[in-house]
């Protein structure tokens, strides 16, 4: 399916995303009309089954969607990322009632979801969550603060992770209009400025048992990993789009920009930068779509393949954006060139859905384990 959709995605981005991305960045806001268009297009429900209002696309097509959008606007792609995180976690672990209530709304863009995991004192160290669900008769009371939550400014529902006394990590759905929910926008980020980040306060929010997602005790081992997995697929492919954008900008500029009587692309040092960028793009594409295929085939190695794709592609995007600015020189430092925004956005890719260092820690443990098994056969 993926090849048949690529042109559609490119056309949508060229018409509705790329021309506006710089303005959204300056405004630190994506207009509601654009979010509505995203919903109408069905792109936010790309991977959800049709019975829940989604498109039922395979993951490779979802990857191509993120790649196309990533070249146009990382901030808008972030909305697609987060909707996949919330909806796929809910699809796997939600009750039928939760799925019937929320998934069609999310798939059609009528309600935006937010994945409320990170806290002021718990970014990479998820075991340090302090948000608490306390039993209160048959129900629960939620207290805590979440920070750096993408889409929270315009979200209608939050998938919140906390700890339930004596039961361990727990997840629950909290509507934005629930009494005790307060959203405090975070502005002046260096990038992803339209992605609607916010700090979200939960003060004595009543949580009925029917709002728990998955069983208490399994929120960090089973619920969050499904969401983060789709977040990493989306982010890796979005970073691939950004990387491709840097590459295309750079080769076009190198072919036309003159330095004395030579084209910039005739200079060996510029060719070196472009050679690395183009090779990185090809390698990143292979990793990203290899991960998508593994997920489409529901293979256990999809998780580590996705980690590798996100790890490699986000770092390659940072290198490419830096080199793209370097190749353009002063004009690449000005916001009239997409390279300036690429440069700022690329760094965020190394932070979200697990930092580069967290990826290295997990992948390093996996690889060292493989070596041990080779050295000490059973």
């Amino acid at each position, binding site marked *: 399916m993926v090849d048949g959709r690529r042109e559609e995605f490119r056309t949508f981005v060229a018409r509705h995303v790329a021309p506006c991305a710089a303005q959204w960045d300056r405004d630190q806001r994506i207009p509601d009309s654009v979010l509505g268009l995203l919903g109408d297009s069905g792109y936010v429900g790309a991977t959800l089954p049709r019975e829940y209002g989604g498109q039922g696309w395979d993951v490779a097509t979802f990857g191509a969607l993120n790649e196309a959008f990533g070249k146009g606007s990382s901030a808008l792609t972030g909305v697609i990322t987060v909707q996949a995180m919330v909806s796929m976690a809910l699809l796997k*672990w939600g009750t039928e009632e939760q799925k019937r209530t929320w998934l069609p709304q999310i798939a059609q863009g009528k309600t935006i979801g937010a994945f409320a995991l990170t806290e002021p004192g718990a970014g990479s160290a998820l075991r340090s969550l302090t948000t608490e669900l306390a039993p209160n008769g048959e129900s629960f009371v939620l207290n805590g603060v979440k920070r750096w939550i993408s889409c929270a400014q315009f979200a209608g529902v939050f998938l919140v992770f906390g700890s339930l006394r004596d039961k361990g990590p727990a997840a629950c759905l909290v509507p934005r209009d629930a009494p005790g929910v307060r959203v405090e926008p975070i502005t002046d980020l260096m990038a992803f400025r339209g992605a609607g980040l916010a700090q979200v306060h939960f003060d004595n929010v009543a949580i009925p048992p029917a709002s728990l997602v998955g*069983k208490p005790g*399994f929120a960090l081992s*089973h619920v969050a990993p499904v969401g983060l997995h789709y977040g990493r697929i989306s982010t890796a492919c979005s970073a691939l789009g950004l990387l491709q954008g840097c590459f295309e900008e750079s080769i076009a500029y190198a072919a036309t920009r003159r330095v004395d009587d030579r084209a910039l692309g005739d200079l060996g040092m510029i060719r070196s930068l472009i050679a690395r960028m183009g090779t990185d793009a090809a390698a990143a594409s292979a990793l990203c779509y290899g991960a998508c295929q593994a997920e489409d085939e*529901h293979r256990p190695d999809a998780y580590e393949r996705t*980690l590798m794709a996100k790890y490699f592609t986000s770092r390659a995007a940072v290198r490419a954006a830096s080199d793209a600015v370097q190749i353009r020189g002063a004009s690449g430092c000005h916001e009239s060139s997409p390279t300036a925004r690429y440069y700022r956005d690329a760094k965020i890719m190394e932070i979200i859905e697990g930092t580069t260092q967290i990826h290295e820690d*997990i992948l390093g443990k996996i690889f060292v384990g*493989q070596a041990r098994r080779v050295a000490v056969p059973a």
Partner: protein
Amino acid sequence: MTATETQTVQAGDQVRATIRQFITSAISLPNLDDEADLFASGIVNSLFAVQLMTFIEKTFAIEVGMDDLDMENFKSVNATAAFVMRKDGRRGG
């Protein structure tokens, strides 16, 4: 032992061997006891729980749902094999 019981035991042994092979391919513990608590021992990485779930879903064509979230179902090779046998009635559980 009846023929049916014998078939059930053989199917259980096969399920256990398949699960054991996956687990020993995922963790670096060559002499893994079938009763060893995988999660208490700290030998698994943070992805192992979802990878094990994905493996048994794909290999045995069963779906792990919210009601199945119980560490007793996945804590060891034997526990996981018993869970698969219970979940998939065709195997005689």
